[in-house]
C-alpha cells in the first residue's frame, strides 16, 4: 500500500495535466478548427449519448465483433490444421503471405462492388483484413510447438481432442493472442474506413459527415469517441489476454 499513492500520482499526473492544459488553453479559442474543449464535450454529450448517435456506435461495434469473431474462428480451425501439416503449409503459405501483404483498405472498393453498400460488405472487409495476421500467427504458433512436448504427448498416448486442448492450443496461445492483437487494431481501422468510404450509418460515416458540413465540435467529439473506443477495446483485449495467458505470464515472472 506504501507504493500505491506515488504510483497513482505517476500514472495520472501527466494525463490529467494534459487534459487540464487542453481545457484551459482552448477555453477562449477563436480558431474555427480548434474549438474550446468545453464545446467539444457538450457536443459529445449531445451527439453520441442523447441523440441517435448511440445507435451508430452499436452498429459499428456489432460489425466489428462479427467480422473479428468470424475471422478468429476461421483462423483457429484452419490455422491448427495447417500448422500441424507441413505439406499443407508449403502449398498454401505463399498465397497467404501475398494476401497479407495487400494493404487491407484497398479491399474496401472491391468488396463494395461484390457485396454492396450494406452490412455484408463492411463485415467482409473487417474479417478479410484481420484474418491474415491471426491465421498466420496461429499457423506459426502451432508449427513451432516444442518437439519435446510433442514427443511427451506421443509417449503418454495423448491423441485427438485431448491433445488439441492440452497441448496444441495452449502452446500456440501466446502467438495466437499476438495475432489477435494485431488483427483487432486492423479491424478497428477497417471498421472506420469502410464507413467513411461508403455508408449510411456507423461512427465513421457520422464523423466524415460532420467534417463535410464543418460541424467542427461534433467532429472533434467523434475523434475523441474513436480514441476512447480504441483504448477500451485494447483494455478488453488485455483482459482476454490475462484470462487466456495468465499461466504463461506467471511462468515468466522470475
Amino acid at each position, binding site marked *: 500500500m506504501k507504493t500505491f499513492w506515488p504510483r497513482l500520482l505517476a500514472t495520472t499526473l501527466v494525463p490529467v495535466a494534459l487534459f487540464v492544459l487542453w481545457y484551459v488553453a482552448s477555453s477562449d479559442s477563436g480558431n474555427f478548427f480548434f474549438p474550446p474543449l468545453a464545446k467539444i464535450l457538450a457536443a459529445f454529450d449531445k451527439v453520441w449519448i442523447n441523440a441517435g448517435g448511440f445507435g451508430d456506435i452499436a452498429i459499428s461495434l456489432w460489425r466489428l465483433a462479427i467480422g473479428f469473431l468470424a475471422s478468429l474462428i476461421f483462423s483457429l480451425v484452419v490455422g491448427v490444421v495447417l500448422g500441424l501439416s507441413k505439406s499443407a503449409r508449403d502449398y498454401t503459405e505463399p*498465397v497467404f503471405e501475398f494476401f497479407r501483404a495487400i*494493404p487491407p483498405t484497398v479491399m474496401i*472498393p472491391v468488396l463494395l462492388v461484390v457485396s454492396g453498400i450494406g452490412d455484408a460488405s463492411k463485415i467482409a472487409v473487417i474479417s478479410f483484413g484481420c484474418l491474415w495476421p491471426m491465421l498466420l500467427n496461429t499457423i506459426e504458433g502451432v508449427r513451432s510447438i516444442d518437439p519435446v512436448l510433442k514427443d511427451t504427448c506421443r509417449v503418454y498416448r495423448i491423441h485427438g481432442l485431448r491433445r488439441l486442448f492440452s497441448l496444441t492450443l*495452449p502452446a500456440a496461445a501466446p502467438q495466437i493472442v499476438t495475432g489477435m492483437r494485431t488483427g483487432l487494431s486492423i479491424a*478497428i*481501422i477497417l471498421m472506420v474506413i469502410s464507413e467513411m468510404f461508403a455508408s449510411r450509418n456507423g461512427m465513421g460515416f457520422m464523423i466524415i459527415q460532420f467534417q463535410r458540413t464543418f460541424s467542427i465540435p461534433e467532429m472533434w467529439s467523434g475523434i475523441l469517441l474513436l480514441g476512447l473506443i480504441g483504448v477500451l477495446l485494447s483494455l478488453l483485449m488485455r483482459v482476454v489476454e490475462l484470462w487466456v495467458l495468465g499461466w504463461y505470464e506467471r511462468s515468466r515472472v522470475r
Partner: protein
Amino acid sequence: MAGSSSPSPPLATPGALLGPAVVFTRLYGTESMNRAVSGRRRVTRPSQFRGVIGFGVFLFLWEILPVAGFLPARYFPPFHEVVWALFLDFASPVFWHSVAYTAQAWFAGLVIAFVAAAAVGLVLGSVPVLWRYTESTIEFLRPIPSVALIPLAVLMFGIDIKSALLLIVYAAFWQILIQILYGVKDVDPVALDTARVYGLGRWSRIRHVSWPTALPYAITGFRLGASVALVLAVTAELVIGNPGIGHQVALAQSAMALPEMYSLVIAAGIMGVLVNVLARAIERKVLAWHPSVRADRQEAP
C-alpha cells in the same frame, strides 16, 4: 503488471503437461522475444516447389471458376483479364506516377516516425523517472486508431501529402516507439553498471550499451512500422483522395472497371511484398553482427 492478480485460467488446468511447457519457456525465453530478433524461416527446395504449385492452383481456380460460371464473372473477372490490365498498368505513366506518390508518402512518413520514435524511445527508456510518469499517457495514446485523425487531417491540410503524413507518422510512431522502449528496458544491468564503473557518461552509455541492445528491437519496430505506413498511405489516398495507388483503386471502382481495379489491388499487394522484402534486407544488413543473423547465415547452405 497486473498478471498475478487474475484468477486461475481454465487453460492451465489440464494436467501435468503444462509443467514442461512452463519450464521450456523459461529455458528458451519467450516466443515473442525470440521472434523479435529472428523472425525468418529458411526455405528449402521442396517447399519452394510446393509453394509455386499452390500459387498455380490458386491462379487456375481464379481463371476457371468465373469462366465456368461458379463465380459471377461480372464481379470476378477471370485471371487473364486482370493480368492483361496489369500489363496495361505497367505501360502507363499514370500508374507509375501513382506508385511514386504512394512510395514517397510511405518513405517520408516512415523516416519521420522512425527518427522521432528513436529519439523519444531512447530518452524515455534511459531515464526511469520520465518513463514512470509518461507510461500511462503512452498506453492511452497508442491504441487510438490513427484513422480517427482523418477528418482533422482533411481540414488542416486538405488533399496534400501532409495529411497523409499525419496519419502515417501517427500510426508508425507507436509501433516503433514501443519496440524501442522494450529494447532499452532489455539492457543488461550488469553491462550498464560496468560501463558506469569504466567512467562512461550518460551519452556514451546510450551510444555504446543501450543502442546496440535496443537495435534488434528497433529494427523489428521498423519492419512493423514499414507495413503499417504503407497501409495508412494507401488508406489516405482512398479516403482523402491524395494521388496514389489507393486513389486509382477508388477511381477504377467508381468507373466499375473491374479488371483494372483488381490489377491495382494486385499492384498494391506487390508493393506490400516489396516493402517486406526491403525491411528484411535492411534487418539483415544492419544486424549482420547480431548472433541471430550470424547463426542464420552459418546454417544456410
